[in-house]
């Protein structure tokens, strides 16, 4: 280990390791500090991602692809099931291996990694971040650097210490629970199932994502507003008791998804924030692996460019670069999500009924939205209301 680095990355998830790789391949000395013992474990994720989302950063490999997805099935509260073939295939990952492979790719470019290193403070000199304080196996240490990249996830605190408000309003937090269950034999192996409505997951959705050898990720997310009245776990327990009462649960996890637009500010002198910590999550789907890696790649590149050019101000262009690539799109997704949040069960049922009249070959996700709007003009008013309010 060196006693000084160009860049210290806090957090060894996909956003952090991709940021590290993009900086290291531009000649930067990079250190990743991960609080847990293991990169990639424990997993806190539904593990679904599109092919393009993976392929931009790593060649899809059977070692970390648990199953390949070619269809989505949306299930309305009354049980109407609408199946849509995907234009582009997707995957359910094996995150504990996927994260490992991403970390190895960063290491291949020269990044160093230290696990069990819990960052608990920043070193700030005259308003500029210039290092981190961390605890490693019970010993308090510090390391200085030119730029800190905060990739410390949904529980992000590093940004706060630099004066950026990183916490998420509890109403925007999707509070999730998931079990990986063996022998889910009544589901198509190439289909992701999404359930909507009061019974399954109000202000969120319930999912069944197939994994290899008959296993599946079964879980749900509800907003903190719902969680205040009824915690996520109680929805999952109800479902499991009814559908799969005598099941083998391989993993059981909880987690939060900041399902809202990106933080207003994701850079400050000497520091940038990437991934869930910056809320670079698709607020509509709750997917954060691909967008976190994209945020990490932009952040890692701009941090390196800023150091190479000796131009501190260049670091602040990260916000704009992110907004142009995905941030603005996430704002639209967030508005749509806010509309769907307040759909009644009847509305979900009505949309499913009209959509199921469309020929299978003509079904796309875009078509689903179109059908919803054409057949239920009142939705336009709902969506307009959402756009006007925000």
């Amino acid at each position, binding site marked *: 280990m060196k006693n000084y680095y160009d860049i210290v990355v806090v957090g060894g998830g996909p956003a952090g390791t991709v940021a590290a790789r993009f900086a290291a391949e531009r000649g930067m000395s990079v250190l990743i500090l991960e*609080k*847990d*013992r293991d990169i990639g474990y*424990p997993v*806190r994720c539904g593990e679904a991602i599109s092919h393009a989302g993976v392929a931009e950063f790593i060649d899809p490999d059977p070692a970390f692809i648990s199953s390949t997805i070619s269809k989505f099935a949306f299930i309305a509260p009354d049980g109407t099931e609408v199946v849509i073939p995907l234009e582009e295939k997707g995957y359910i990952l094996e995150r504990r291996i996927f994260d490992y492979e991403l970390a190895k790719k960063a290491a291949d470019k020269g990044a160093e990694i230290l696990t*069990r290193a*819990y960052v*608990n403070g920043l070193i700030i000199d005259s308003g500029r971040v210039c290092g981190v304080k961390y605890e490693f196996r019970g010993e308090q240490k510090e390391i200085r650097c030119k730029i800190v990249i905060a990739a410390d*996830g*949904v*529980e*992000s*605190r590093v940004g*706060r210490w630099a004066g950026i408000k990183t*916490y*998420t*309003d*509890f109403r925007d*937090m999707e*509070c*999730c*629970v998931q079990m990986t269950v063996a022998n889910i034999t009544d589901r198509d192996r190439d289909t992701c199932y999404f359930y909507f409505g009061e019974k399954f997951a109000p202000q969120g959705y319930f999912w069944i994502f197939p994994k290899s050898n008959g296993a599946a990720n079964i879980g749900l997310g509800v907003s*903190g*507003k719902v*969680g*205040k009245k009824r*915690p*996520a*776990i*109680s929805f999952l327990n109800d479902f499991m008791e009814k559908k799969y009462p005598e099941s083998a649960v391989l993993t059981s*996890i*909880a*987690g*939060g998804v*900041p399902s809202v637009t990106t933080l207003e500010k994701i850079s400050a002198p000497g520091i940038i924030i990437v991934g869930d910590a910056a809320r670079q999550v698709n607020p509509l789907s709750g997917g954060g692996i691909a967008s976190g890696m994209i945020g990490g790649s932009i952040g890692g590149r701009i941090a390196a460019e800023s150091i190479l050019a000796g131009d501190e101000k260049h670091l602040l262009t990260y916000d704009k670069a992110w907004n142009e690539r995905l941030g603005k799109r996430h704002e639209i997704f967030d508005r749509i999500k806010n509309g769907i949040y307040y759909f009644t069960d009847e509305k979900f049922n009505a949309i499913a009924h009209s959509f199921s009249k469309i020929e299978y070959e003509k079904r796309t996700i875009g078509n689903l939205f179109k059908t919803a709007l054409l057949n239920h003009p009142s939705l336009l008013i709902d969506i307009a209301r959402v756009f006007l309010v925000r």
Partner: protein
Amino acid sequence: MLLIEILPDKCDFCGCCVGVCPEDAIELKEAEISIIESLCTNCSKCIWACPIEVIKFDIEKYKKAKNEKLL
């Protein structure tokens, strides 16, 4: 006075509570979690966000403190 309690035996250390805490009053390590008493305002947002119901508001302590005019 701290009225919020995280039940460590039940906690999954998922970080949802840390993510919604407006006061930066929760410290989460790999499998250790604690509330920083000096920062916590008992706002209860962590309780609402917890997906698995492991954070409690100590109502008895609250009543007792209220009776003794400590709050």
